[in-house]
Structure formats: C-alpha cells, structure tokens
C-alpha cells in the first residue's frame, strides 16, 4: 500500500517534509515509525487522516499520516 507521510518540527531534520511511501500490507503506525527510525516515545502526536492514533493502529492504502515530536504552543 501507499501512504502519505508528513513529518514536522525536529523530525524533518535529516529526513523529509512530505513523502509517499510504499509499505507492506498490514503495516502498523509502529512499523512505519521503525522504518523512519523514530522512537515511539519521541513521536508524541501521531495523526492519521485527522485523528490521533497510537502505534498499534493498522494503516490503510492512501492514509495521510502526520508525525510530531513533543510540542505545544498557544
């Protein structure tokens, strides 16, 4: 399956901003994080198609995935 991955803040350093990635069927968000070499504990906000999900979440074809380190503002 093909998913769209968007990285933010410090995760962009040495990686990318936005990219389409091919993943094996049945991959979870955790699998994607491992592939990107991002520790699960560092990926504080993970959003798939607008909803916050955890590492166990199973991904589907055409998912849009946004991954953030710990950040806040206001």
């Amino acid at each position, binding site marked *: 399956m093909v998913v769209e991955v*968007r990285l*933010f*803040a*410090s995760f*962009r350093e040495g990686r990318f*901003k936005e990219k389409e990635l091919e993943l094996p069927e049945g991959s979870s968000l955790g699998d994607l994080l491992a592939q990107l070499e991002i520790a699960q504990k560092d990926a*504080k*906000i993970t*959003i798939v*198609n*607008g*909803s*916050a999900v955890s590492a166990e979440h199973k991904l589907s074809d055409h998912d849009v995935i*946004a991954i*953030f*380190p*710990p*950040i*806040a*503002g*206001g």
Partner: protein
Amino acid sequence: MAGYAGTFLRINLSTGQIDKESLDLELAAKFIGGRGLASYFLTQEVDPDVEPLDPANKLIVATGPLTGSRAPTGGRYMVVTKSPLSGTIASSNSGGFWGAELKRAGYDFIIIEGKSDKPCYIHINDDTVEIRDAGKYWGKLVGETTDLLLEDTGDPKARVLTIGPAGEKLSLLAAIMNDKYRAAGRSGVGAVMGSKNLKAIVARGTGKLKPAREDECKSVVKNALKKIRENDVTSKGLPTYGTSVLVNVINESGIYPTNNFQESYFPTADKTSGETLAEKYLVRNVACFACPIACGRYSKVGEVEGEGPEYETIWSYGASCGVDDLEAIIKANNWCNEYGLDTISAGATIACAMELCQKGLVDPDEIDGPALEFGSGEAIVEWTRKMGESEGFGAKLALGSARLAEQYGAPELSMSVKKLELPAYDVRGIQGHGLQSATSNRGGCHVRGYLIAPEIIGLPEKLDPLSLEGKAVWVKIFQDLTAVIDSLGLCLFTSFALGADDYRDMFNAIAGQDLTTESLLQAGDRIWNLERMFNLNAGVGPEQDKLPRRLLAEPISSGPCKGHVHRLPELLPEYYKERGWDEKGLPTEEKLAQLEIA
C-alpha cells in the same frame, strides 16, 4: 511581607492625588494576587454598570506574589478593568520585564482612577511616584514612545508600559504594550487607558525581593526548574520553534479555522508554520523575566523587525484571512505592536470583513483601501495600519467584528463569544475547548482553560477531542488552575511541565503561606465566581455562554473533522452542575458562601 511588596498605589488622574496604601495580607492570600486580587478590588470599587470608557471605570495593573521572584517565568502582570469590547470583566496578562520592575519598586499593583485633562504618564522610581505631561509622546507609535521615554527619563534600565495610537483613539481592540513587544492584548484594555489620557507607565525599582522561607524556596524552585528542563515541550518544542509550531498540529487535526471559520483545514498552512519561521525569518529566541523556556521569537523581514509573530497571530492574519504569505503576517504583526492592537481580534476582524465583502454585504465604494479579499497579504498589512489610525473604513474595523457584522446585518459572521474574537481553534472538533470558550469570563479566549493541552497535545493525558465524557470536570479544573497561575504572576506555559502541587509549593515558600493544593484550587474557584458575579451584575448573563451559530449549527465542511458541530447544549448543564451553580448558570448562595465571597 514576603511574596507581596505590601503596598499598592492609588492614583487619581482627575485630581492628581497619589496615595500609597498598605495591603491586607490576609485578603491578598485569599485572592492570591494578580488577576484574583485585582478582580476583588474592581468588584468592590467599580459599579458593574459603569460605561467602560467613563472616568468612573478603573484600570488596575497588578503583579502576583511570585512576580519578581526566582520562580521560573515570574515576570507577569495582569490588567483588570471593565472591558469596552465585551462589557465583561477584563483581565489581560503580559510577560516581559515590566511587572517585575514594578514589584521591585515596592508595589504590588496600581489602581488608576479618573481621567487626566491632558495626556500624561506615570513615572515610578522606587519611592518617587509622579504624574508627568505626555503631550510629546501622544500620537507616537509604541517603539518610538518607549525609546523617547527611556531617553527622557535618563534611565536605560527603566521599563516602559505604553499604549499606541490605537489606545489613544479608543479602538476597542487596543492593547497595552510593555517592553515594546509584549502585550496585555485582549478585551480592549488599551482603550480604557487611552480614555484616561494615560499614555504610559515607566517603572524603575531597585528593591530586593526576599522569599519568606529561603531554603524551602531554593529547593522548590530547583525542583520546578528541573521539571521544566526535563519536559520535552518546555525544554525542546517551545524553545526551538516557539508557539507557532502548533500551526501544523492544529491544521493536521482538521481544526484550523480558515477563511473566517468557513473551512477548518488550510492546505498551505506549512508556509506560515513555526518551522518555516525558524528557517527563514528567525533572528533569535527571546525570553521574558526569569524564564528558562524562551518561547519568544525575534524575526526580521526587510526593514521590519521585532518580536513575534506568535501562533495565534499567524492564524488570525494567516488561515483566518486565507493568507499564506508569512512576510505579510510578520508586517501586520509589526503594525499591531506599533499601534498597540490585539493581534487576535485585529486579524479576526479583518477576516470577518472579508467574509462580509465576499457575501456582498459591504458597498465596495466604502472600501477605501485594498480589496478585502481572502488570501490578500496586501489587505492584512494595510488594513491593520488603517485600523491603528482609525482611518476610513479602518475606524469601523477598530471596533471589532461583533459591532462590524451587526452594522452590516450579519451578526452571525462575527466569530466571537461575548464580542471577543475567538482564537485559532475550530471547537467543532474539540468539545472540551469549545465548552471553555463558551463559558470564559472574558469571552472568546483560549487562555482561561487551555483544553487543547489534553485534547490535542495529550498533556497531562490524552483525551478524545470529540468525546463529551468528563469534559465539564476537566474544564472546571483547568479554569480554576489557570486563575491560580495568572494570579501568582507566572506564565501559563509552565503548566505544560508543572502541576498544581508545584504552584502550591512555590507560593507557600515565597509568600510564607501554608496552603494545601485543595485550598489553592479553591482560590481559583473563588476568583472564577467573583468574575462571574461581576459579569452577571454588568448584565452579561448565562445567555451569553454561547458560541457563534456557525459552530453550533453548520457542520465542518471538509477535512479530517468533516461533519462535526459543537455540542454545547449537551455540555452546559453538566458544567453548571460541576461549578455548583443552579441549572440556569447562576452561582447559588451556598456556593458563594462556601467561597466566602457572598
């Protein structure tokens, strides 16, 4: 009197009388200080029916017991008055260095009464307090006023709080600025200052503030600093990218209001994000007094440079106006700093005007400047300047979106609560935050209980933003704790790393108190109810605990939160109950007696 200076100033600008009064320590501890104590004095001394711009309204500028102390971020002050924008109690908070300077001069707060017959400023140099002529500074922008005052008073270490031309011209969106770039921004407090012909307050203090319990203070401050250093948000996220790192999170969550809340996702938001700001325009980070976080940004575009823009400003001038030109946003932010305008309300009012024009409700001949069209960078910059000057159609904008939309026959297009423009979150996708926005005592505001922390960021724990369960309880606790933090004189951003116990420990050690966490939070509840009572007596009742119709009745049209509306009617009864109010939303006599404010 540790923690507190023990003295406050009462300055009557009509008579020129300056009094120094002693602070009742027991009373101070009951309302903590800052926002709480100033609200107490306002409710005691000002008729809630007063016309906000009448000399009978008072302007209270107040520090908290931790202002000027070693507590991290202890540099804040609050401005409390009756708001000319919303008719509610106003309490606007600001950082920088001015608050700590006032405290070091020996004063907890200043109650400003009456109206000077000509422009004046107040000069405070430790024990010497004078009212001086400000004819020379009237009409000048904030940056120039600050520089001139520092030059003329001959003390470069003094700190300047001032209004810009917007406050002088009584714009209902006028802020009070300090240290050039920091703003007590919301609720039109700058207009109240302008209505008194008061241009500035210069403060210089050389006193030393000692904590009541030295050893205990050292250890609790050390502990708080350690938590701030070890917390990823306060030690990495905020220092590296500033508040605007939130742009992408909120946008990706599908709750980033776009084109005056007509959409909730802004496809090119990243062009205006904290990441882009850091990459292209950031000169350096900036910190307020005693702040280890340093979330402030100093940015530069060509000739225009200064602090900001913050997340809320990037939104109000950005997505809210459909603009993805960060340079234009930086320039509009700069005009707000110079004219002394609230960036949230100013940007959101331009967005409202853009929708009024889009719907053909404004005669194009009236628009004496760039077309008010969504997406126009030129429009946001020039209309902010015109708003600051109250020039042409800009004079209408300067009164805020509620009055503007009303005048053009479409009040529902003002995205405000109690006439205060809502900030950068589409609450149709964040139920708890929507409840807090509807019930905030100063109107559409995000810093009376920042439910974005649990609902989106996951701090202190992750809540489902669309669920209603338990939200009323969370809102009450956040509102009460925020009232405590504001009253102590600390920055709300510490709450990403600290909890109620940490605030209790610092207050007890520095002010020599022995409060439990429960009694500290009860003080927050007391302050909340006090503010609510002022509003009720001012005629702003529970019928104003509402959200704009669009958020209640029109589902989000696209993006990740498509189909959702805010479910306020389901949440309000539970919230009133949680607060101990009756089903109409009125504080009961028992509740007020229990809080000792009956």
